[in-house]
């Protein structure tokens, strides 16, 4: 019998209604959550999977999660056994060695039933501000995953719509910021429920048969478009090598290597040659490396391509076991995203000669966590806070890298200062662009960002970041961006540098200062339009001296003009 034709309007309606269901999951999560990291910074993701555990629709929040989620959710459900999940049940999981990522990213997954028939799964992942372990906010340099916090294999936290009190108390007992975390778990439950309701509405309208048939078509549609996009990529073998600057215990760089092969069989990513895993927080799980490759491939495709299983099936990754790109138990994983995002910079660097107009020069390319906690003297509660700080973007073939933005798979917002100070005992004393931090180029990198925290009470503070040795790389003659600075300032004393992966005890009045890297430049700086250099100088983004030395442009600051003849002299000398 011939297959019934696909009604193009019904197709679009169902496709968009599914995406809308995922978006509403995200809204419910954000609006009912408690921690700043979830409710404001949007460090979470939501998605709908079909009954065969294929990714169908996702909310546009954090690409890093979305790419890893598609591996974690099927593995978690398979391990628990789909037959053990009934209506209203939900499983909780964060096991890095069960398809997960770092422990803070906890997924809650619930089956969706239409009557007594399983029709799919809603799942949401939130970065919890604390999961126990050796330091507040559960970021820090440790030797084994056991020190990093609570490891949760798939467990049924919600049974028939109600929290299992025993399990819930057991989980919360491991966690410092109990009130916030409990609120965030309730928000995750609200998110899955909202998704299930919307899915039921769609089925009610179109019937289960049509629902399933159109899900197949939605995935096939993405498959067709992805195949066409892949065919358009330049063929060849492209590779790059780079580093994570240190591992938190030794000062040795962590070597990364990536090779991308594009041919008639599609695109293959290979991280062979990357360092063996460390007893240090720089190890990526396979899901994280997969996510980096998925992000890179997606960024090279048509902007309106919907991402689902039909896309992910084109992401082929070979990451040798036991390396920092596919670590094995019991390696610590909390800084795995640092490695993940650096791989993204390397992938684009590798592809630069073949696709010079599609990519960007080196970016901040680190998560750059700032985590702290302690007793809040006012409320008597143990609080934890976590955020990540933006930096410079890399220059592009026709435009400068934007200043102070998140990069690659990371797109979390800043924590509003007023919200932060209302809820946590900290004062942000400075939040500004770092002048002269850009990587010079014909199109310069973006500026890095400075954020200073003053602590009126004792606290424990963790830096989990990178880029303190090497700035983001330039391309085609562009120079690197600045290195990052992490420092502590004690009252009346000189500033002291901190390592990019360290935990310190703070006394009242201590200040921690972050100054993140600027992005790498694109093209030779002496080719930069002097008027663009002037505009940067007039905005105090770069200094008169830097304009002269790095761009060969002489600015007459009183007249607010380019000194054309001296500029010619500087540039000839070069």
């Amino acid at each position, binding site marked *: 019998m011939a297959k019934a034709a696909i009604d193009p309007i019904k197709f679009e309606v169902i496709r*968009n209604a599914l995406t809308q269901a995922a978006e509403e999951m995200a809204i419910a999560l954000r609006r009912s959550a408690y921690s700043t990291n979830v409710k404001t910074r949007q460090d979470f993701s939501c998605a709908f999977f079909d009954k065969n555990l294929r990714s169908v629709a996702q909310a546009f929040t954090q690409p890093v999660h979305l790419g890893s989620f598609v591996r974690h959710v099927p593995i978690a459900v398979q391990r628990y056994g789909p037959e053990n999940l009934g209506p209203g049940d939900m499983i909780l999981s964060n096991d890095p060695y069960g398809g997960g990522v770092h422990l803070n990213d906890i997924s809650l997954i619930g089956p969706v039933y239409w009557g007594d028939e399983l029709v799919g799964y809603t799942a949401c992942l939130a970065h919890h501000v604390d999961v126990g372990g050796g330091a507040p906010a559960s970021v820090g340099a440790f030797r084994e995953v056991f020190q990093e916090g609570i490891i949760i294999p798939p467990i049924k936290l919600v049974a028939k719509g109600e929290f299992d009190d025993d399990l819930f108390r057991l989980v919360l007992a491991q966690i410092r910021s109990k009130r916030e975390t409990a609120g965030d778990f309730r928000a995750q439950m609200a998110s899955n429920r909202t998704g299930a309701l919307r899915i039921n509405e769609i089925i009610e*309208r179109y019937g289960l048969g049509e629902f399933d048939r159109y899900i197949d078509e939605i995935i096939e549609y993405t498959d067709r478009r992805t195949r066409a996009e892949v065919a358009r990529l330049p063929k060849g073998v492209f590779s790059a090598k780079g580093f994570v600057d240190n591992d938190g215990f030794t000062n040795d760089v962590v070597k990364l290597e990536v090779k991308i092969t594009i041919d008639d069989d599609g695109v293959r990513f290979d991280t062979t040659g990357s360092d063996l895993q460390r007893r240090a927080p720089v190890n990526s799980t396979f899901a994280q490396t997969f996510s980096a490759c998925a992000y890179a491939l997606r*960024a090279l495709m048509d902007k309106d391509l919907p991402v689902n299983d039909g896309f992910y099936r084109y992401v082929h990754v070979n990451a040798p076991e036991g390396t920092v790109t596919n670590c094995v138990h019991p390696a610590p994983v909390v800084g795995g995203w640092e490695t993940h995002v650096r791989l993204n910079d390397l992938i684009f660097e590798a592809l630069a000669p073949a696709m010079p107009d599609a990519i960007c020069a080196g970016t901040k390319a680190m998560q750059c966590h700032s985590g702290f906690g302690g007793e809040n003297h006012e409320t008597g509660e143990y609080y934890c806070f976590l955020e990540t700080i933006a930096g410079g973007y890399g220059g592009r073939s026709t435009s400068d890298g*934007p200043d102070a933005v998140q990069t690659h798979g990371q797109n979390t917002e800043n924590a*509003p200062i007023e919200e932060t100070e209302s809820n946590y005992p900290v*004062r942000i004393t400075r939040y500004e662009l770092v002048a002269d931090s850009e990587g010079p180029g014909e199109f310069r990198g973006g500026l890095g960002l400075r954020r200073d925290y003053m602590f009126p009470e004792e606290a424990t503070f963790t830096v989990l970041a990178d880029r303190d040795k090497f700035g983001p790389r330039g391309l085609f003659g562009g120079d690197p961006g600045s290195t990052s600075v992490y420092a502590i300032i004690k009252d009346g004393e000189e500033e002291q540098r901190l390592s990019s992966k360290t935990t310190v005890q703070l006394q009242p009045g201590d200040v921690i200062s972050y100054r993140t890297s600027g992005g790498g430049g694109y093209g030779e700086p002496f080719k930069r339009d002097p008027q663009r250099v002037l505009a940067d100088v007039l*905005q*105090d983004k770069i200094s008169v001296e830097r304009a002269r030395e790095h761009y060969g442009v002489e600015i007459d600051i009183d007249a607010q003009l380019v000194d054309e003849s001296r500029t010619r002299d500087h540039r000839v000398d070069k």
Partner: protein
Amino acid sequence: MTGTANAQFRIGVDIGGTFTDATLVDSTTGQVTTSKVLTTSSDPATGFIQSVQKLLDLDDTVRPDAIEHVVHATTVATNAIIEGKTAKTAFVTTEGFRDMLEIARQIRPSLYDLQFEKPPPLVPRQLCFEVPERLDAKGKVVTPLDEKALAEVVERIAESGVEAVAVCLLHSYRNPDHEQRIGKAIAARLPNIIISLSSDVVPEFREYLRASTTVINSAVAPIVSTYLASITEKLHAADITSELLVMQSSGGVYPAKAASDNPVFMVESGPAAGAVAAASLGTALGFPNVISFDMGGTTAKASLIRNGQPNITKDYSVGGAAQSGTGAFGGASGYPIRTPVVDLVEIGAGGGSIAWVDSGGALRVGPHSAGADPGPVCYGLGGEEPTITDANLVLGRLDPTYFAGGEMSLDLAAAQEAIRNHCAEPLGLTTEEAAHGIIEIANTAMVNALRLVSVQRGHDPRDFLLVAFGGAGPAHAVRLAEQAGIPRVLIPLGPGTASALGLLVTDMRMEGSSTLIVRSDEIELSQISSEFERLENAGREAHHVAASASGDPIFERAIEMRYWGQSFELSVPAPARDEIDQAWMNELTESFHDAHETAYGFRANDEPVELVNLRLTTVGKIARPQMRKLESTGTDASIASKGERPVYFAETPETKGIVQTVVYDRSKLPAGAVFNGPAIIEEPDATAVIQPSWTVTVDQFGNLSIEHNS
């Protein structure tokens, strides 16, 4: 009976990119009179008064002193932002934070686009100034305001030659003292400058959103206040001294003085009018679910109305890309404002949109518009590039001798020549084929806008009625509905000015709020009563300024609440009890738990509840005009026939495009008339094009109800 013998008439004026429309309603009879003039882009106030004067000339029984009020919708603020023509503005903030606007939320507007750009800040870095001072999160002074440093900043502001200043200090929503002192210092040195304090404009926490809203307020205030003053002056010169009201982005109206002080509330004034008109019409006719489609000379706007109410959002960005998605607080592609806005999608496709062939040999339409000046080629006002209106003329959809009811004749030969030279010949097409291509390309973009508000929000367009208006809406609506899968279209009487009618079917609404941020178990109940009383007094005073609008004001009290620890509030109506006592609080808390359960599927009875904002809306009820029934009835449409003319419809290939099509005079169509497409229906301010396979029924009020034959 509403209104008095002295204040019998109300006027609405809606200025679009191409036309300025005015509507007069007689409150006693519901009689509606309309006028239309070309928008005077260089000085829109001139077109405004021309349209009003034209109304008064049409009916000499209307005395200027019998006008109760004039309501206005304008795009002057949003145009200034989109075109980068806002006033030169300075930004003053707490020391250490001058990059607040530039850093924004540190996110990228699109996730997978390596070539993205951040929107440039409305205030360049060299005009952002810092003042040493600091409050803590409770509003307590940590660092006193440094008066000496302030004096220096004021001098630098004076030297910079700015027209406006926005002030946003950390935690000023808790304690406005430092902002107020800065405001006074600037005003003392620069008495003619406009100053917006964030603690006045939107006293809500989260500094970037408050700063962005405040900066937009000050950057458009010089433009808006000059503009409204000019209109007021012209109205006075015409002996109209009644109150000038302005439509807000949320669909309510407020007095011109309030609009001059707080223009950020009317940034999307123009589009809101159309949505309100469509909602009102849909409700009156028994269609609570409507997609509003308003196509004028410059842009087309779509919005979704459910249960008779336009969607209102506070997560809005001015100049943001049209997109669906949950980018927190409206995405990162424009400038966020934290004021209520009708949720709509606007695209650059209107009758004046210019068609052109790009370097790759593709036919393109827009985003450039010929606007009103020079306008389409066929207007004969100097336009040389072909537009959508020219294409409609070439296809026979418009009558060259009956444009604007015959007040203006169109130059068909010039339109044909322009399309031939600019589009047909470069592409190797016939002139008609090129003209049809122009229409179809523009339609594709408009169908996308309809889909953004419906399908992409998960609503099936088949469940909705498309209400089409604006001067160009009726010519495109039926074909759009066909492509978007909407089975039913309604074209109101006088579609060209329907949006202006929206101005006369809304109440006066003024919002007041007071920030508490206190837990329900720690609050002083007397504080709630005294704050509500203070807000009511302010609301009553503002209401009396516009006293002629209606009788006594109605107050709507609501409390924005959340669980202690959350950041997003749910608005809960205040319990209807005389006294604010513990029973009141218990009832309020219970309502909040209920609302939370409805919204998110769970309640947390043991969690502390926080009262964040008290909100008071002062409503001045304004009587609605009555729709008048048509006098003539009958099923026979032929009495309205003006004859036939050839019209190009590529939708029917068997006729090779040209179809002999009956042309109807809308004013002669009786209630109850039924006829089939293809058809053309002409009235003075718009021409409706009915595709084959659609049937038109004229309802008792003269609206065209058009249904697909399926």
